[in-house]
């Protein structure tokens, strides 16, 4: 029973923890921008976890009533709605995330993004927490000695939370560009995961028609193995997906990859929506930057490099006030160029702070 409790609690906590770590590493970019107090910016995590637990408790109290509704498929309908809402909020998050020069509207955008994140985390904890509560209350109510199950649950939760930490530090330990790319990719995969799980549940409830199984990837990665289950928790890996699941997954992927932040992260500055003369210059500079390997730059290209990077990140640097400038510039500079240009970057950042 101990090991059983470990496995079950681990699976549920893992899904919620991975989602939370992904969102937390995504929101790290807000720290480069200081726009004063934003609703729940600092304690949105605590707020959403607490509300998630409350809602999970309410959900499991009404478990049987929900389960018996819709001709005994009420659970599938409820879970499918939770998954589709999560998918919608993740896509909204990607589209609302600031990615251009419009610092003026940043405050409202950040509020919107925080609201989306709160909803996603609450829904995730609702989903997973209710299953844990169901398992825990059922097994404890049996009259068995509850202690091994409780310890098993703790161990499982600990492993899940540690994996979440691992993902967070793995994502944030990368350079700024790579980190943003990885976060956007994982966001797209998670949105696709939510959509495909919603279609699977509706198929289970016979609300969506049958579609044939498209492939069987058990030869590549067995679904019931440890790695397979980890992949399922992180990105919704299914060894035998149906056609509708694949379409839903693809829809989630495309919806996130089409967003401005993903275009900025994956396709470079030139793909984002703002177009001015300054942007045209920045585009030309960043093109030259891509052709030049940092180690072999001559001084002229280095100048262009510095200017290109400043113009790309000027809005973020310009919006920072006071003592944050040096720290931010240092982190951006260190992340992007480990080269002599760093001092130049800092001096230009200083000029910017004097101007702004």
């Amino acid at each position, binding site marked *: 029973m101990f090991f059983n409790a470990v496995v079950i609690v681990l699976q549920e906590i893992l899904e919620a923890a991975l989602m939370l770590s992904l969102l937390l590493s995504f929101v790290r970019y807000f720290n480069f921008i200081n726009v004063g107090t934003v609703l729940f910016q600092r304690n949105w995590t605590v707020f959403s976890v607490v509300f998630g637990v409350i809602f999970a408790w309410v959900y499991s109290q009404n478990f049987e009533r929900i389960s018996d509704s819709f001709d005994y498929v009420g*659970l599938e309908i409820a879970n499918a709605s939770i998954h589709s809402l999560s998918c919608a909020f993740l896509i909204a998050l990607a589209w609302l995330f600031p990615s251009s020069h419009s610092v003026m509207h940043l405050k409202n955008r950040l509020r919107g993004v925080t609201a989306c994140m709160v909803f996603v985390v609450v829904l995730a904890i609702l989903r997973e927490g209710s*299953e844990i509560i*169901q398992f825990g209350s059922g097994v404890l109510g049996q009259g068995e000695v509850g202690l091994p199950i409780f310890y098993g649950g703790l161990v499982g939760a600990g492993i899940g939370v540690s994996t979440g930490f691992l993902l967070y530090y793995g994502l944030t330990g990368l350079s700024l560009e790579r980190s943003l790319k990885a976060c956007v990719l994982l966001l797209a995969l998670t949105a696709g995961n939510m959509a495909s799980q919603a279609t*699977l549940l509706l198929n289970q409830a016979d609300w969506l028609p049958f579609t044939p199984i498209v492939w069987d990837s058990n030869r590549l990665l067995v679904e*019931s193995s440890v790695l397979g289950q980890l992949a399922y928790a992180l990105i919704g890996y*299914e060894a035998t997906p*149906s056609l509708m699941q694949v379409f839903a997954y693809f829809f989630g992927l495309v919806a996130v990859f089409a967003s401005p932040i993903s275009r900025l992260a994956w396709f470079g500055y030139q793909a984002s929506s703002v177009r001015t003369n300054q942007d045209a210059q920045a585009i030309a500079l960043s093109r030259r930057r891509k052709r030049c390997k940092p180690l072999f730059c001559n001084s002229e290209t280095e100048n262009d490099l510095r200017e290109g990077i400043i113009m790309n990140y000027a809005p973020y640097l310009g919006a920072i006030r006071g003592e944050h400038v040096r720290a931010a510039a240092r982190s951006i500079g260190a992340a992007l160029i480990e080269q002599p240009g760093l001092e130049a970057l800092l001096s230009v950042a200083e000029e910017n702070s004097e101007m702004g």
Partner: protein
Amino acid sequence: MHELVVFGAQEFRGRLLVFALLLAGLLSVAGFAKADTLEIELRIRDHLFFPSTLEIPANQKVKIRIYNEDPTPEEFESFELNREKVIAGNSQTVIFIGPLKAGEYPFFGEFFPKTAQGTVLVK
């Protein structure tokens, strides 16, 4: 003088007839769809599945009605069938498994996996 009547009695009767025919058509199709689904029962007692082997015909949608006769909840899960559902203690639930090709599809109870095991045999 504006027309106050939108359509007369004769048109109304005609449209009502068309609507009734459409509804009857839809309901009959739905009825046929429901009649296609085979319904079988599965019971959970003392953390075991009864019967432990379910035999169903191939390429047909099947409705499984699961009765959990234990006081504790159980989770019906199968990787091969792609189905996962929690059933509360002393209650029933319904799961659909779609048209399947011939073969063996094992399932298990996730909360008590050592004892609760079964197979769906598709012929």
